[in-house]
């Protein structure tokens, strides 16, 4: 990898002050260091945040919102009693991702910022608009099995690879960030962006902002949730399609529904109109197709990934069924239930 400066800021203020366009914050490093070895990320300096105080807490405030510090590891978050009790959907989604070793290193803040797994993005000997703007997107008519079917642009069809973020989107989490002008709260739906004509930008985070926490509002979905992930092997593979569902039921009818899709777009994919279709309805299987139709409206394939449209439809129906039946997908069993 290229030579770089390694710095250990003593506090958030110092970290923010030291952050330039050419610097990167270092969390668990599970993605950033790989990308540096591949010469895809070329930071002039790494600002190691992992020893900072105050970013490692998991707490619940008076309104029942859960606040998870940016430096909490994925493994710790998934195992934390507050997360397991109040937001098992998040714990499940985290456990569906990567491996135990990676989850032990990866941080919540870093996971938000992980970059696409597009083959071309990783291979500096091929063109890629996300890596080198203006060079082109060979994925569009190349190998695109893992690529997006929604929200793509002519410049980029990459997906966001996180499982955690799909659950956070369904849970309407808020990303708390700090920058030179103080704290800012970004709704999950606004945090990641679509590629448009600037695919090099994954998020709406400013260059000098740092993620400090993730806040998840109180939910009342009980066991009516699921994170269903379909992939090319049963563990340690990115989602072809994943579905996070949180379903609140009142007297047998859906009072509130949140659905987010992973593996299909440059960001976790939500369509509020699709969720609204079922609100006030009994969770009957016949209605699930309409939700899928609305979620997948405008979907298009690029060849290898054509199947994702059909697969997503099936996955949405199954996930809604699992949530309605209070039978969330297990991430320990060696099977899809």
């Amino acid at each position: 990898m290229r030579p770089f400066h390694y710095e250990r800021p003593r506090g958030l203020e110092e970290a923010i002050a030291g952050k330039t366009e050419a610097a990167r914050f270092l969390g668990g490093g599970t993605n950033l260091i790989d990308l540096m070895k591949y010469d895809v990320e070329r930071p002039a300096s790494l600002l190691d945040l992992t020893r900072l105080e105050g970013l490692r807490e998991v707490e619940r405030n008076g309104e029942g919102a859960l606040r998870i510090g940016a430096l909490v590891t994925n493994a710790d978050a998934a195992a934390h009693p507050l997360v397991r009790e109040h937001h098992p959907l998040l714990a499940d989604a985290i456990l569906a991702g990567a491996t135990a070793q990676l989850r032990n290193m990866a941080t919540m803040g870093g996971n938000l910022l992980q970059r696409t797994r597009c083959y071309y993005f990783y291979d500096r000997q091929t063109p890629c608009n996300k890596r080198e703007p203006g060079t082109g997107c060979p994925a569009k008519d190349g190998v695109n099995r893992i690529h997006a079917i929604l929200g793509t642009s002519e410049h980029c069809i990459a997906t966001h690879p996180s499982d955690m973020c799909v659950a956070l989107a369904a849970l309407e989490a808020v990303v708390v960030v700090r920058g030179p002008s103080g704290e800012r709260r970004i709704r999950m739906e606004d945090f990641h962006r679509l590629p448009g004509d600037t695919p090099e930008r994954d998020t709406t985070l400013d260059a000098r902002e740092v993620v400090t926490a993730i806040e998840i509002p109180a939910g009342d979905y009980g066991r009516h949730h699921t994170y269903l992930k379909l992939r090319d092997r049963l563990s340690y593979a990115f989602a072809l399609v994943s579905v996070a569902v949180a379903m609140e039921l009142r007297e047998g009818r859906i009072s509130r529904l949140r659905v987010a899709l992973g593996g299909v777009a440059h960001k976790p994919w939500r369509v509020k109109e699709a969720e609204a279709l079922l609100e006030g309805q009994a969770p009957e299987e016949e209605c699930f197709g309409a939700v899928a139709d609305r979620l997948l409206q405008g979907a298009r394939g690029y060849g290898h990934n054509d199947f994702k449209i059909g697969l997503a439809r099936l996955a949405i129906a199954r996930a809604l069924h699992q949530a309605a039946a209070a039978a969330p997908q297990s991430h320990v069993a060696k099977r899809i239930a």
Partner: protein
Amino acid sequence: MMHHPLIGTPQDRVDGRAKVTGAARYVADFETGAEVLHAHVLNSAIATGRIRRIDTSRALAVPGVVEVFTHENRPRTAWFSSAYKDDVGPPGKPLRPLYDASIAYSGEPVALVVAESYETARYAANLIEVEYEAKPHETDLLKQLPNSYVPKKRRSGINPPPRPKGSAASALENAPVKHVARYLIAAEHHNPMETHATTVIREADGKLLIHDKIQGAYATKHYVCSVFGLSEDAVRVVSPFIGGAFGSGLRPHYQLFLAVMAAMALERSVKLVLTRDQQFTIAHRPETWNEIALGAKPDGTLSAIRHKAVGSTSRYEDYQEAVVNWTNLLYSAPDVELEYELVQLDIETPSDMRAPGAPLGAFAAESAMDELAEKLGVDPLALRLHNDTQIDEVMNKYHTSKELRAACQLGAERFGWRHRPLAPRSMRQGRELIGWGLAFGAWEAQMQKHAARVMLDAEGHCTVGVATADLGTGTYTILAQIAAEALGLSMNKVTVLLGDSALPQAPVSGGSWTAASAGSAVHDACARLKAELLLAAQTRNDSPLVGAKLEEVMFDRERIVLMRDPMRAVSLQAAFAAGGRPRIVADGQAGPDQLTQLRYSSHTHSAVFVEARVDEELGQVRVTRVVSAVAAGRILNPKTARSQVVGGVVWGIGMALHEEAMPDHNLGRWMNHNIAEYHIPVHADIHEIDVIFAEEKDLLTSPLGVKGLGEIGIVGTAAAVANAVWHATGRRVRELPMTIDKVLGLTPARTEAR
């Protein structure tokens, strides 16, 4: 008194402790001091064409960079491609790394950076600017099928298909029941845990000590001496541990050439370890297309077999493997036409990968047999047994032994095959459809010429030496068992030395021949050593063994015992004292028996039974149960033998469901060149695997009765999975891997679009 048997008993790996504690040294573990230079390869970004300009100045300017080699400044080495021929290379002109400006495939080395540290070398490689002049390339096998050809020169060791028997075409026309279909298997890349690497230690006298990831130390030695014009005594190759290779280490790869070139030019020690991504630039199992036609009488008797396979190869070598012959080896038919052709693509030359050719042909043939059984309305096992043959109809020879039927019976019983409903979609549990499928498999049982040396000292310490490699297969352990049993020693008294070109000569370890060949050579050396030891024991006139012949004594618990009167015995210590020598050394050898080979054909066989569970709506496949019943001669060590077969089965499941090298035909480049995106099975994909060995007595194949187990585990597995998936779902997937989209029918079959 009972002799304590070691052969045939489960024994722990003798190198197990060294491996789990890190004491075992792999190629990259050698010479980690500051005196060694580190090299990193820059690979080509284009598939064909030439380098117009290459600018290394920015790389050279990096502090710590010692040299950057390109085709423009490389040292002079052998000129003619014939000098680059290795022991098992296919016909053609081997790759000559950095030879000139031309590019033969995406990933071919274009520069080598040598630096004081690995990180520096890797960083500097990124600073090299290459300007290419790209030419049109072709990497699509299916597009090139019309240009397939029969290789002009056959590859040594690979039998081309036999001449046609009768007329398959007219027999097929007249067959009352027929099945014709195409089957396609994706290219796969070898991904051993240890990537390919070479450490060249340049000694004070200029001699080279080379640690290379190779399946046989002599293969590296021959290549290096030939390419660099070095004398035999100037090169020693020592590779005691190989972290898996699966055929990718049969041939020397570019990292060996480049590391030796740099070491010689710079007069320094050099280490070159390929990255995981670069592992996708040296070798692969070729994408292979099959078309198969089976004709049968209404009672299921096969009347015709036509099986054609087309495999991909590079532009510079005609890589060949046996894909179609197995079909007629397993099943008898009067009219048979087997064809094997190649298509040249702008890719690196494919290479042998575990059971090269066999699982590709078996996927086609064993899927087709299942489809025929469906058309006939018969049990697929019954159809197979009905057409089973005790004669090798390909070579027209008898088998030395073939206990496939016995294996089949054991496997079927263990699996519960007789409870299988004939119709697909008959079994389900919850949302999952359950299917049972099976397939047969076969692989060659070969002997290759091997030499071995055994040394014994008065304390009963025995050292065994053979140049062959242990690729993780268990060779260290079985050779220790053979020597310990022959000499009446406990296992811990035997030290086995392998992977060193200073040891008695052996070819590369491959083709499942090592246990039979190296084992027999050690056995032979031990027999000679025993004769000398007996002579020593008889030196004194009052020896209790006076007059005893070798066959009248046994070696047991460090004593030589007269069998008819066990009270008459001489301890090893006494024998050595009497003989007056501190140690006895004996050389042995083993090789193929010409006469046996003329008369007989020798193979291992398997019957693989698979249970697959498929989520009916979502297409997710689980292989929940596998019984692999194997007939493979004498089993030296049931524990390591089982591991070999389990490894093959896991890989077969991967071939069926996961493994696929994905080419971008626009760029002419494999794109999923890392193990995050190139999928092999993980623990979550693997459930119960049961291995059964059918008893098979066969002293014709090898003196020890051993046939070899390296490949048979994989051969029929993928086909059995496909057959189980069909039985579960009623959907026939003819293209591997059977990913979720293919199982659901969401992705159109590529062979049908033709």
